[in-house]
């Protein structure tokens, strides 16, 4: 794992405090979406499929800060839409850093160089760019449906690193991804000097018989095993090693849908970052009135059966690390040996 010690400490002490307080459900990372607009139109992206008046909407910085205050997570991730198109992104990040929140600004990096040159941000241990890259040039440009985006993103990454910013990457992998090319991608990111990488399977949902669900899960485990087996020592991941083991089929986890709650222009999204089954006006209302028993693999919900996405399972992995000796031991072992 490549997280700074101060960040690991902030998360660990937060989790311990929640457990000591006897909280059954607590969030770890707030997914804060201040807008849905984007300068890309990736196929299948539900975030941008709205009428114009919705795409024009922005949360105010005050609404964002109130949401951060209300749910209290130590980490705030800002996806979107494209957050670099949010008019107040500089002030929002500054305010969050002042509150000692660890901020991940998830960007496709098309505007990154321009915004850095405009002096919009200041480097901080609390602030990272998380650049969306779904593989090497060919794979990434295909995933985002536009040629040249990979090159722009790499330019942005280089500029951010040159200016002393923390930079990570986040990659979504679908069935059919090439393990060899992904391993080459990891090498390339390490050569660039990024702090760490995050990977997750994409979310897909289709009604299918049990056997097909089983095969899909097996295929996903197989893909991630081939990508992550015999990992190179130089590869650094900015996520829980137990989550990576889960992707490889080495850990049995259940989803923690309240772990990464989502707040956007509609309110608090039920039940998770992926599914939109309604909105609550407050975080407390979200926690208290969502029928959590209807979500996760064990619920039998068709929409959850094939899901292995980080926003549901990474919080489980983190809880496992701090909630059991076995989890703690497995995390330490994977961190020390660099093997999953």
């Amino acid at each position, binding site marked *: 794992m490549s997280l700074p010690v101060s960040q690991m400490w902030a998360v660990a002490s937060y989790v311990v405090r929640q457990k000591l307080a006897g909280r059954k459900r607590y969030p770890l990372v707030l997914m804060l979406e201040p807008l849905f607009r984007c300068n890309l*139109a990736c196929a299948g992206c539900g975030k941008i*499929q*709205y009428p114009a008046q*919705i795409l024009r*909407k922005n949360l105010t910085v005050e609404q964002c800060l109130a949401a951060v205050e209300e749910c209290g997570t130590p980490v705030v991730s800002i996806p979107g839409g494209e957050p670099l198109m949010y008019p107040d992104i500089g002030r929002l990040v500054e305010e969050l850093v002042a509150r000692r929140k660890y901020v991940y600004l998830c960007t496709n990096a098309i505007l990154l160089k321009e915004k850095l040159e405009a002096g919009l941000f200041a480097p901080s241990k609390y602030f990272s760019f998380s650049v969306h890259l779904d593989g090497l040039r060919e794979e990434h440009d*295909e995933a985002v449906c536009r040629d040249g985006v990979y090159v722009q993103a790499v330019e942005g990454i280089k500029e951010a690193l040159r200016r002393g910013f923390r930079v990570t990457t986040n990659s979504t992998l679908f069935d059919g991804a090439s393990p060899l090319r992904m391993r080459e991608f990891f090498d390339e990111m390490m050569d660039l000097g990024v702090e760490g990488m995050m990977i997750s399977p994409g979310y897909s949902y289709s009604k299918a018989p049990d056997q097909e669900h089983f095969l899909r899960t097996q295929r996903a485990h197989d893909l991630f095993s081939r990508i992550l087996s015999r990992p190179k020592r130089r590869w650094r991941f900015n996520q829980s090693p137990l989550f990576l083991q889960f992707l490889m089929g080495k850990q049995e986890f259940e989803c923690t849908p309240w772990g990464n709650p989502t707040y956007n222009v509609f309110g608090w999204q039920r039940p998770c970052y992926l599914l939109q089954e309604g*909105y609550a006006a407050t975080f407390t209302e979200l926690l208290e009135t969502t029928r959590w028993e209807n979500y996760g693999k064990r619920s039998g919900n068709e929409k959850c059966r094939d899901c292995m996405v980080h926003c549901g399972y990474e919080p489980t992995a983190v809880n496992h690390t701090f909630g059991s000796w076995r989890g703690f031991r497995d995390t330490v072992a994977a961190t020390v040996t660099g093997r999953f």
Partner: protein
Amino acid sequence: MTDGATLEGWMPEIGPALSLAEVVEKAFDYRGNVTVIRTDGSETQGYLFNRNADGPVPFVQLFDLNGGGPHTIFYREIRTIRFTGRDTATGNSYAAWLRAKEAAKAADRAEKGSGSTPPRGV
């Protein structure tokens, strides 16, 4: 997201074969503006982003065409909902993208041209 079939233009009549709750669910899933027709004949157009059928007083919530709101309308006030706005999800699934790409590649092969990325709209 929808891919192919769309409810765009649908003007359902609520009755024994189709309940208001069913239409509300479809409007909630719909990625375009709708027109809510009240029992008194007045109309509100906008994006229906939320509904709560479980509470003591079931309601829907919309942002209007100017982005104003949220406007809350109770189920008991609604006669029907019309799917009047463009469905922004139609044809924009990843599967549709792959099909378009394959078709473009096939066309390129036929013309012996280079395999460029086909354009897509949202």
